[in-house]
Structures are given as C-alpha cells and as structure tokens.
C-alpha cells in the first residue's frame, strides 16, 4: 500500500481553528472563575487569527488535499471569511445577552467555535462523508446551544424539536447519498460528476437519490414544505442563539447546495431543477403570507427567512455559474442583514423583557430615534427597498432567473416581495406612528451593542450605495 502524506497547508485555517477551540475549551475551566470575559475575548481573537490565515493564503485556484476529501478554492475562502465576519458580530451581541439573562457560560462560545468549524468543513467538503461530518458537527453544536438555557421550557422544547427534525433530515440526506453512491460508485464530487455525465450510472436510481438529497437540503435550509421547525425554533431559542442559527449556518447551507448540486450533480439538472422550482415557489409564498399573521418579531423574521431561502433558491435553480453567484451574494447579504435584525432585538432585550414582540417596538422613534432609524434601515434592506443592499441581492437573483428562461417565476417573486414588504413596513409604522405604551427613553443594553447595531445597519446602507465590490467578489469566486 503506497500512501503519500497529504499536504496539510490548504487546511491550515481549519486546523488552527480546531486547535484554538480545543485550547479554549480546556482553558475556560481555569479562566472562568478569575477572568469572566477571557473566554469571550479568546473566541473573538481566534476568529480574527483564522480570518487572517485565510487572507494570507487566499487562493484562486482549486487545491485538493487529504485524498480529494478537502477542497480549497476562492468560493470556499470567501464564504469562510464572511462566516467569520458574521460570527464576530454574533459573539459580540451574544455576550451582553447572556449576561443580561444570566446564563453566561464559556460553553456557549466553545460550542459556537465548534459550530463554525463544522461550517468550515462543510464549505470545503469534497466528498459525501466529509460533508456529512461537517453538517453533524455544526448541527450538534447548535442543538446544544439552543438548550443551554436549561431553566427555560421553550428553549429546551425548541432544542428538542430541532434535534428530532434535524435527525430526520439528516437521515433523508444520508439515504439520498447512499443511493447516489450505489449508482455512481464514488463519493468524491468531481468524480461523481464525471460518472453521471458519462451516462454509465442508472438514471432512475440517481433521480431517486436526488429527491432525498433535495429534501434533506430543503430541511436544513428551512424551505417549504420542510420549514415547520423554523418559526418554533427561532421563537423558542434565546435570541442570542437565534442570531447564531439564522445567520452563519445559512452560508454553510448554501455551500452544501453548491457542492452537491453544482459540483457533484450538474448532470442531473433536470431532476433537481423542477424540485427546486416547486420548493422556491412555495417558500416565497409561505414566507410572504404567513409572516403577516405574526405578532412576535422573531417568528416574523423566521418566516421572512423562509421567504429569503425561496429567493436564494431561484438563483440556484437557474443552474448556471452566474445563478449560483447571485445566490451566493444573496445568502451573504441575508446573513449580514440577519445579524442586524436579530442583533436589534438582543440590543434592546433586558432581563425580564425579551423585547421580541412587535408591540414592544411601538413608538420606538419617540423613545430612541437613532435605534429606530437603524431598525428602519435593516427592515428596508430585508424588504429589498433601494438604496439598501437587499435590493441589489433581490435584483441580481431575479436577473439570473430571467436569463435562465423563467420569467414567470421572476414575476411571481416580485409579487411575493411586494406582499412581504407589507409586514416589514408594519413594524416601521408601529415604530414611527404608533404611541408607545411606555414612553420612557430606551437605550441599548450597552454602548458596544449600540455601536454594533449601528455599524451593521450603516454597512447595509453603504454596501447598497456601492455594491459593485461585493457583487464582483461573489461573481469571481464561482
């Protein structure tokens, strides 16, 4: 047996992240008593270090290592960098929230870091097994983070629900994997694409496998009809964890879609395209209509997230490189906007008042005009109103889907976007035109959060005014 030691260099960011996460895990037990925030700062520093490592070794060519189970390309690097940026924001907001609600613990940050490691593994996966491993590492960390607030019944219920449905979805995904492996005889993505294109594999078995893979992906992304868990889990989790769930994993989920559908199964485009069209139509519809009935902002954002996933999938179902680029741009913008949206709830939530009902935002303009303005920017960006960046995200996806020949789908998407603008504007209306129940001025729980929210919202505006750099980034990487 000849075995060549694989090159470790491309996977350096992952290895450093794993080493730092393990170190923090052990060090936390010593730190936590004496220096309360040591774990928090160490976590943030690790993210910066890993980000620097990725930037330092940024590559535009595809590098495979570990016997073709790991791939490093500019797509992976850019998504990883955005995962890190989003995570920096998540941890900044989480710390204050955990302190306010008295369940601050080092495990939150350690599990968060391991979850990010799982996302990295997914983003760089080049075969079924590694993809599955990354998905499980990420999901397991998230299940635990949701239930970390043990004395809250809703959090434990949300964790349990997510765990059971997540396990079911993973089962579906694995079943699909096994079928495709059975038909092609390989687990490595580029090889799989070759076998499928050569036409040697059994088409019916492949189609059967694709159905299960798409179901699994839709479950993980939270697309209709596999979205039932989203509102309950988003609502039940502590807001800091919702912030984590609703942002960074979406980037990894998109990477999973890209690796599986674009790199491994481009030959089966007829099979997955029609499935994705149905899923996308349903997601946009449910996301637009069900959100109107919500009175809880977290639930509303969950439904809006379902709608966003439907939009993102439009770029995917265009099945072109440009389509995937538009979808990638969409998902990055969605993650950043999510940090601003959930971050606003975190910034205002005090012990005893989650501040997650729409009623809580009544008359926010009278109580704190600056934060109301920031919330306005975030909501407008989500709704896709120019000049905010959400507008560009929507327009690019729609452009790609029209280019792919689905003009009717684009028309439908615009209609749902208009419907969904209603519930975003309803929050804006209650912030600006309703009388507050409690007219006392309100501040973000710490100045840091005030800065954090303001920075994210202003970034949404600035990116909207100068979108070309980040759009180019997405288009050059695929």
């Amino acid at each position, binding site marked *: *047996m000849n*075995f060549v030691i*694989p090159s470790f260099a491309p*996977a350096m960011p992952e290895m450093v992240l*794993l080493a730092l996460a*393990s170190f923090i*895990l052990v060090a936390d037990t010593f730190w936590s008593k004496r220096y309360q925030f040591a774990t928090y700062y160490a976590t943030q520093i690790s993210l910066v270090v890993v980000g620097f490592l990725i930037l330092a070794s940024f590559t535009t060519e595809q590098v495979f290592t*570990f*016997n073709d*189970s*790991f791939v490093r390309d500019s797509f992976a690097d850019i998504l990883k960098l955005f995962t890190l940026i989003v995570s920096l924001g998540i941890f900044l907001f989480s710390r204050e929230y955990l302190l306010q609600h008295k369940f601050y*613990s080092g*495990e939150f940050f*350690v*599990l968060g870091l*391991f979850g990010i*490691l*799982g996302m990295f*593994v997914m983003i760089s996966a080049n*075969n079924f*097994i*590694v993809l599955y*491993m*990354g998905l*499980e*590492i990420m999901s*397991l*960390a998230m*299940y*635990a983070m949701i*239930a*970390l607030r*043990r004395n809250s019944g809703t959090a434990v219920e949300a964790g349990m629900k997510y765990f059971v449905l997540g396990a079911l979805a993973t089962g579906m995904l694995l079943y699909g994997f096994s*079928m495709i492996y*059975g038909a092609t005889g390989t687990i490595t993505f580029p090889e799989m694409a070759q076998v499928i294109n050569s036409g040697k594999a*059994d088409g*019916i*078995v492949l189609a*059967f496998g694709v159905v299960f893979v798409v179901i699994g992906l839709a479950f993980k992304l939270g697309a209709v009809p596999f979205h039932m868990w989203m509102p309950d889990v988003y609502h039940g989790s502590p807001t800091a964890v919702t912030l984590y769930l609703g942002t960074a994993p979406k980037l990894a989920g998109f990477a999973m879609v890209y690796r599986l559908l674009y790199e491994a199964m481009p030959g089966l485009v007829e099979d997955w395209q029609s499935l994705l069209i149905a899923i996308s139509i349903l997601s946009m519809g449910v996301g637009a209509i069900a959100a109107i009935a919500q009175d809880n902002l977290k639930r509303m954002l969950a439904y809006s997230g379902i709608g966003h996933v439907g939009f993102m999938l439009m770029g995917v179902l265009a099945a072109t490189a440009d389509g995937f680029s538009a979808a990638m741009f969409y998902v990055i913008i969605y993650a950043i906007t999510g940090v601003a949206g959930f971050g606003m709830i975190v910034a205002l939530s005090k012990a005893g008042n989650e501040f997650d009902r729409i009623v809580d935002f009544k008359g926010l303009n009278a109580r704190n005009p600056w934060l109301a303005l920031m919330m306005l920017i975030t909501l407008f960006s989500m709704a896709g109103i120019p000049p905010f960046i959400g507008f560009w995200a929507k327009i690019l996806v729609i452009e790609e889907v029209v280019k792919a020949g689905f003009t009717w789908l684009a028309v439908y998407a615009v209609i749902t976007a208009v419907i969904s603008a209603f519930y975003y504007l309803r929050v804006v209306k209650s912030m600006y035109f309703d009388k507050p129940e409690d007219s006392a001025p309100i501040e973000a729980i710490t100045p840091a959060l005030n800065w954090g929210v303001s920075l994210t919202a202003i970034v949404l505006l600035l990116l909207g005014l100068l979108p070309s750099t980040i759009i180019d980034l997405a288009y050059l990487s695929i």
Partner: protein
Amino acid sequence: MTFEQFIFYLLAAIAAVSGLMMITVKNPVKAALWLVLAFISTAGVWITAQAEFLGLVLILVYVGAVMVLFLFVVMMLDINMAVLKEGFTKYLPLGAMAALAIFALMYMVLGPEHFGLDVTGTPDVKAADFSNTEAIAVPLYTVHVYAFVLAAVLLLVGIVAAIALTLRRRPTTEVLYQNIDKQVKTLAADRFRMVKMDAVKEQPIVEAGEEDKK
C-alpha cells in the same frame, strides 16, 4: 433458492419483524430487547455479505454496550408509555398509507431491475484468510483520515454538549462542597478567636449540708 439466500431472507425477516415490534410494543424494556434482536439479525446480514468485522462490531458495540446502557436508562426513568403512545391508533391509518406508498415507490427503484445481480455483477467471494479488519483499517487511517479526525471532533462536541446540558452545580445550601482554595488560604485567625476576659475567681463551694446547720 440457495442456502445463502435462505439465510439472508430469514435474517432480513427477523430484522423487519423485530423493528416493527420495537415501535409497537407497550413496555419500553421489551422494546429495547426487540431492538437488540434487530441489531443481531442485521449483524447476521452483514456477515453473510462478507463484512464479518462490521457485523461483530455491531454486536459488540451496539448490543453489548449501547443497548445495555440504554436499558439501564429505560429502567431508571419512569416513562409513561401510555402518554407517549397517545394518538398512535389515530395516526396509524395515515401513517400506514404513507409507509405503503413509500414502500411501493422504493420497490420500483430498489427492485432487481436496478440492483439485481445482473446489474451490479456477482460480488467476488473472498478467500477464508481475507482480513476484513485490515480492509477497513487501512483506508480509515489513510484515504479517509480527514473524515476520521472529524469524527473525533464530532464526539468531542457531543461530550461538551452533553456535559454543558446536564452538569448542574447545586447551590451550596443544598450540597456542601469542599473548597480547597478556601481551606488552604484559611489562617488560624479565621478559625480560632482569642477572647480576653477577666480572670474569674473561684468561689469556695458552700456545701448544701452546712447551710442547713447554720
């Protein structure tokens, strides 16, 4: 039907029946035992497919370790199965219909047309001294080493998650902990307080009898 086929169908039937029994039986301990039977018959199927190592590991790990632990948990917890099983008959028709539909679809795809011996080719029979363990071990530590390390990370996350979710430090009013730091730092002054008092002069004890005499 060859002898091998007979064994396969027998084991497969046992596995399917015990799987069904496991989810329908009322007593959780019995359900766990049915699951053990399902594992053992599955291990048998694997061994007939020449995967002896996997079959034995399934029996050792799942039957021997996991299920025994699981049985302990089931016996320790007071699970009210009647509540868990509520709505079972209500959802049974719908569930059975869905299951049958999926089964029919799967039969069409997984049937002999697509996975028969004439499609996949007869698997070559390995010699008696063929080492199954080696066939698994070598790729596991070479080609798939990345996935193997990730599996270790997954287990680590599992441990962290389980401990973070279950470890409860009871308040010191309920349970007394030994605080070693505090014990070492303790000074004599913390434990032992010198109190200055005036000396007390001892009074001669007047005996009860003498008083009476006066």
